[in-house]
């Protein structure tokens, strides 16, 4: 780089550019936060949904599955599993684990109570109703 472009000019551009984009990002974040209630239907965040999310976290489900495309890529997407499989199948499936089929990927048994299973289903139902701009492309997730 030429000598007319000095280090202090470069530094000032760094500070200016960073502050400007950070403020722009914050402004977008405020706008997003303002718009979110219309998209995440938070009025449906029941105690069951909230407890379901807690169970989702404390069983480290995201260590194998994705939810809205984020997580591990070892097991199916669960953001839309409520629509794909329905509540009864989800509960049956969780209770039936591990399948023990030789050579197949295995999911642990979590010994959930019926109430806990209902909470997980409530959380997955709530998640499936978030406005995700039509993602995933099809029901297979």
């Amino acid at each position, binding site marked *: 780089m030429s000598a007319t472009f000095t280090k202090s000019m470069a530094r000032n*551009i760094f500070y200016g550019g960073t502050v400007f984009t950070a403020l722009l*990002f914050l402004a*977008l974040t405020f706008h*997003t936060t303002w*718009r979110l209630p219309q*998209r995440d239907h938070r009025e449906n965040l029941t105690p069951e949904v909230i407890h379901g999310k807690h169970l989702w976290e404390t*069983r480290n489900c995201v260590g194998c599955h994705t939810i809205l495309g984020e997580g591990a890529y*070892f097991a199916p997407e669960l953001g839309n599993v409520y629509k794909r499989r329905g509540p009864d199948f989800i509960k049956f499936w969780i209770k039936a684990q*591990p399948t023990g089929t030789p050579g197949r990927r295995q999911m*642990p048994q979590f010994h959930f109570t019926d109430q806990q299973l209902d909470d997980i289903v409530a959380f997955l139902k709530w998640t499936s109703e978030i406005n995700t701009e039509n993602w995933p492309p099809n029901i297979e997730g």
Partner: protein
Amino acid sequence: MQLQYQSQAVAKPYFIAAIGLFVGQILFGLIMGLQYVIGDFLFPAIPFNIARMVHTNLLIVWLLFGFMGAAYYLVPEETETELHSPLLAHVLFWVFLVAGALTIVGYLTVPYASLAEMTGNGILATMGREFLEQPLPTKLGIVVVALAFLYNIGMTILKGRKTAISMILLTGLVGLAVFFLFAFYNPSNLVKDKYFWWWVVHLWVEGVWELILGAILGFVLLKITGVDREVIEKWLYAIITLALVTGIIGTGHHYYWIGAPGYWQWWGGIFSAMEPLPFFALTVFCFNMVNRRRREHPNKAATLWALGTGVMAFLGAGVWGFLHTLAPVNYYTHGTQITAAHGHLAFYGAYVMVVLTIISYAMPILRGREANPERAQVLEMWSFWLMTVSMVFITLFLTASGILQVWLQRIVPNAQPFMAVQDQLALFYWLRWISGVVFFIGLMLYLYSFFAQDKPQSVEAGEVQPATA
């Protein structure tokens, strides 16, 4: 060869710990790679989610060890003063190592739900989110270590010379600590949870970590090429400007499908499409500096790592990131093996390689010599090629499996379920695993290179001095 400042020596245990944890990370990677094709491998002893947690958390921890070691090594030299408190650095080393080890042992021996219960997740629920799985005490420990570390580094910079390299490093490290605080924010609304989760993950790896990367690389290039500091620091400012100007709003490429407004497809797409620019500048910078070198540094291996970082960071973070960053593409590739492919090459090319660069440069000096013996360097360079080429192949095989996955599961009219598709990807998963084994062999060679000596030279007849009476 002597250290310029005695307190730089505290970097040594940090580098050794980093390499040790790196080995653990790769072992668990191999376990997971096998579980992709032999689903019940090690089940139920080590379920996939546990192995993955160990794999990713060890990566983060060993990179942090590397960053801290780098800071302890380069800050005294940059500021031209001894470290504020070498004792504090030693204490923090053991605190961080013990906390990290306990966390990993906890993952492997206690069911995750019990671990959550035992460690106060009921008081403040932070666990069970990707990469932020650590129990509350570990998270608090990270904050304490980070603050004390920043105090130590900050005080050192305060009393000494303030160079752009050390200031950029400090800015990156402060950002690292600040954005980690979002790990404690876990709203019950999944959309908000995800939105701010990225403030840790994205603003780390596509934000402030790039400052740390630039500072470390700039320091090593300054030392091995002897190029004017003014030139190097000007380049650094240009690179980090590009990094933050594109990377901050580039966060939006994670906001396409998680419930955030649709306009993020434009904001995130346009800004993140420019995220390869800082990495391209980094590549040009590395080659430019080496080409304009004013000295021939005897540490050829360190030069190779530095150039390798420039190239592989651009490929992994830049090119492989760009591949799936635009919303119309990401609509199909989001949450597939394409993401895994990008994640592997980006982390290796940018952060693994920059830590190995500073270790390659600093470790010989910490061991009392300017560069390693010839044979050790040759072995280290072999390990460079083995690890780098095998990581490229891991990425290519994951990319191939990702394309197939997208096609079979999301594009064809009669789309197939997830597991049916996974079965058809087995060939690529096997090839990926074999590449992983080669990577591990490269890593073992890397370890061995630390102990390799030159073969004793046979003494030439003419050199024998007659004994004097």
